[in-house]
């Protein structure tokens, strides 16, 4: 009868330490990846919210009669509004520039604070006075 001889020795401390180090390294790398992804997903959510907030206004302005858009004598900020979404305050600034009597530029900027940092996005378009 052949007996298989088992090695009953345990892991050495060295082996254990190395294994732990490797695991720690891997976990650390992963956590870094997870963390940065979470942050960027959150940041992206904010950006999407901001763009949607700006886009809503653009559509609204497009549907208004040309004369009603903007302040005819003051080509500066025409309207400022704020909205809280996902626990963050988004502020929307609408600027109307009268390029010509029959052509206006609409700039819509949305600003918010993210991790103590000020962020902003801006969309722009032109609107003509159609006969």
């Amino acid at each position, binding site marked *: 009868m052949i007996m298989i001889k088992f090695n009953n020795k345990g892991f050495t401390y060295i082996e254990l330490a190395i294994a732990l180090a490797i695991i720690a390294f891997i976990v650390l790398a992963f956590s870094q990846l997870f963390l940065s992804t979470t942050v960027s*997903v959150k940041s992206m959510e904010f*950006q*999407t919210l901001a763009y949607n907030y700006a886009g809503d206004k653009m559509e609204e302005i497009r549907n208004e009669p040309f004369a009603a858009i903007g302040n005819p004598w003051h080509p500066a900020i025409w309207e400022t509004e704020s909205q809280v979404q996902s626990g963050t305050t988004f502020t929307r600034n609408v600027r109307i520039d009268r390029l010509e009597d029959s*052509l206006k530029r609409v*700039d819509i900027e949305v600003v918010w604070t993210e991790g103590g940092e000020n962020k902003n996005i801006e969309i722009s*378009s032109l609107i*003509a006075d159609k006969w």
Partner: protein
Amino acid sequence: MLNIKDEKGIALVLALILLVVLSVLAVAMVFLSRYETKFSVKERLSDSALYIADGGVEYAINELQKDISYRGPETNSVGNAGQFTVSVSTQEQPANHYAITSTGYVPDATNPQETRTVTCVVNIVQGTPPFAVGAKEGITVASNITVRGDLRSDGQIVLGSNVFIEPSEPGASDGSIYTSTGMAKGVYITGNLYMQPGREIRSRGPTNASQGGDTPATGIYQESKIKSGNPLIVEGDTSGDTNPIGSYNSVDLGALDNMDKVVYDEFKDYTSNETFNLDGKVHKFTQGVRFSSNITFEGEGTIWVSGGSGRNYGLELCSNVFGPDGGYASVNLICSGGTWNEADIKINSNVKINGLISGQTEVDANSNVQINGVIESGGTINVNSNVTIQWGEFGFQVPMTGSPTATIVRSWQEL
């Protein structure tokens, strides 16, 4: 000999495999999420490019409204957000329709991260000329003429007997006569003239009796023959807005040429008793055309003579030219070129037309002619007897130069 029954250690292998699979899944999830966020940024930038492309369309509409010949291509910035490149085409479009193509770039056209292109067809409806009869060099009308609308000329207007100048429709304010000639007898009233109350006759003729006038103000000759309406007479008129049209040829020939058309490269003579199907097209005759008697025009369209020579008329309609069932033919008659012995356009007797009649140097209409639309000439217009000219919209649209009256967006789509 190998003992295959020894399964010890398989747990470790399984655990490792499971660990690897889970790790791969986790990494995949992370990357998917990152990719999604990246894609989301791209999409937002792309939205931004779309707003800029839309802005380009609006820009082109504004330019077209100012100058209908605007075609681009042009690249412009929209604030700091991006740039657009816009161009306009009339190729294969109906009259007065303009296809605008605009591409929005973020952040700029030279190194765009995102690009969106939209195309929009707008119908910019040009105003029908604000007169029923308008000629740069002069208008002569003979007897039994009714004009519903204004008469305008830079030259002399001679009115025969029994001429009725009426508003184009009840309640309309037109039905006046304007000339901006510098000669004596700017408006020469030779027979009975009937007008409606509240109208006017304005002439810029000189206020100089030695030039043959009946009064020291010679711009309007023989006002005594005005039988009704008691119009306001203004001689030596200096107002700037009585004759706003610099050039009477108001057809946009370039745009006309881009319309769906049939080209005839030799002189065509359509014999009697024929039916001509206009088929919603521009029929371009590069050497002239003549329609004999008893011609029926079916459908609607434009007859355009662009050149030719050696004949009396560039575009001749003989007698009995009607639409279906003896009604109005829905046709525009345009002669924009050629050298003709007598006139660009000759309309003989018994003709009914709904449309624009536009000649380069001379347009003649003989007897029993009814026109629903406008007659204009870069030179003179001669109208004989029993002619009625009713100002109105054209049956088949003609591309016109001039001030737009309406801009209608027909389609707006992304390419």
